[in-house]
């Protein structure tokens, strides 16, 4: 087929493009993913029994804000990476801010603790399951967001895959916060981050294949 005929074919009968469709698709994917993660957490792990008291602790909200901050940055990156030619540049730093704040908190807590108690603060009681559970809870958002991004045109599939994975991990972490009994920043700024890093790494691995177009 000659290029002229090909162009004529493409231009023939073009319906108006719904400019809001991508936004709706992303919102749906995120909502479905978060709802599924929360249901999975409630059904499989159970909401922590003292949740009603825990919500009065500032640390409960700091922990949630940590996950939400990373999730917000990852969502912003995912949205931008889904469109060709949108720059990110120095705004990658948005991702580092919540981590830097949490690690500062960890450093303060560990510095104030007696030397013998530091390892206990870092490991808590659930370090051996925390990251794995977060990674498992991230699967619904991961799948839903991959579907949403596949409807777009990411030109950097590996980085985009990682951003999708990180977003899925952060969404899972927010749901997991309602279950997890650990309140020390030393614990959660380590193990939550590791839990989010697992789906991010998976995303970077499968991105080039899963997001090809």
């Amino acid at each position, binding site marked *: 087929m000659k290029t002229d005929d090909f162009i004529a074919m493409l231009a023939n009968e073009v319906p108006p493009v719904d400019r809001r469709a991508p936004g709706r698709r992303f919102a749906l994917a995120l909502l479905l993913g978060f709802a599924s993660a929360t249901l999975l957490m409630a059904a499989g792990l159970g909401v922590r029994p003292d949740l009603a008291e825990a919500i009065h602790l500032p640390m409960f909200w700091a922990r949630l804000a940590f996950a939400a901050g990373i999730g917000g940055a990852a969502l912003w990156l995912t949205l931008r990476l889904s*469109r060709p030619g949108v720059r990110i540049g120095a705004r990658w730093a948005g991702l580092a801010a919540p981590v830097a704040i949490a690690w500062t908190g960890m450093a303060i807590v560990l510095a104030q603790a007696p030397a013998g108690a530091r390892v206990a603060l870092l490991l808590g009681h659930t370090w051996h399951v925390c990251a794995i559970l977060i990674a498992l809870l991230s699967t619904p958002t991961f799948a839903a967001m991959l579907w949403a991004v596949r409807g777009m045109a990411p030109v950097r599939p590996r980085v985009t895959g990682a951003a999708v994975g990180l977003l899925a991990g952060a969404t899972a972490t927010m749901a997991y916060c309602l279950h997890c009994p650990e309140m020390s920043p030393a614990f959660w700024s380590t193990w939550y981050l590791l839990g989010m890093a697992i789906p991010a790494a998976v995303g970077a691995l499968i991105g080039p294949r899963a997001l090809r177009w």
Partner: protein
Amino acid sequence: MDRATEGLSAPEFHLRDCFIRGLAGDAVQYRRFLDGLGSHLRAYLRRRLPRAQADVEDILQETLLAVHNARHTYRDDQPLTAWVHAIARYKLMDFFRAHARRESLHEPFEDDGSLFVQSDVEPADARRDVGRLLEALPDRHRLPIVFVKLQGLSVAEAAQRCGISESAVKVGVHRGLKALAARIRGSA
């Protein structure tokens, strides 16, 4: 003047205008956009592929299809050059990967904004026949494209001929063109 139109060259300004109208459903303006873009892309690809001139028309068609399939991802506040350039570059990288012409990558690949500087309206022959790839698509994709996009029937007429709903015809065209892009990728 907003960020997307500030300091634009005349051809880009014109193309962007046609494109935006095309997005709103104006087929004549959209055709004008694709024609103009095609000439610029041809010149761009011929510069980028000095040793693979025979492939230029193929990559051009593939890139135009990619632009068409991704047209909903353009943001109004974004320079058209940046958007088109990112897509063209993505498709070109795909081509390089498929052909492992590593030496071609030595040329730096920056967004130099030169996409709309030159234009080349003389087409060469495409090596790959997109028409044949189209014929090989399954009926649910092929028929809507043949009726609506090639024969120029209205969506309603095509729906009647295929015995499916109008929205199914629209979805068929949309998915069919995506499937065509996948076939083109597979044939590289």
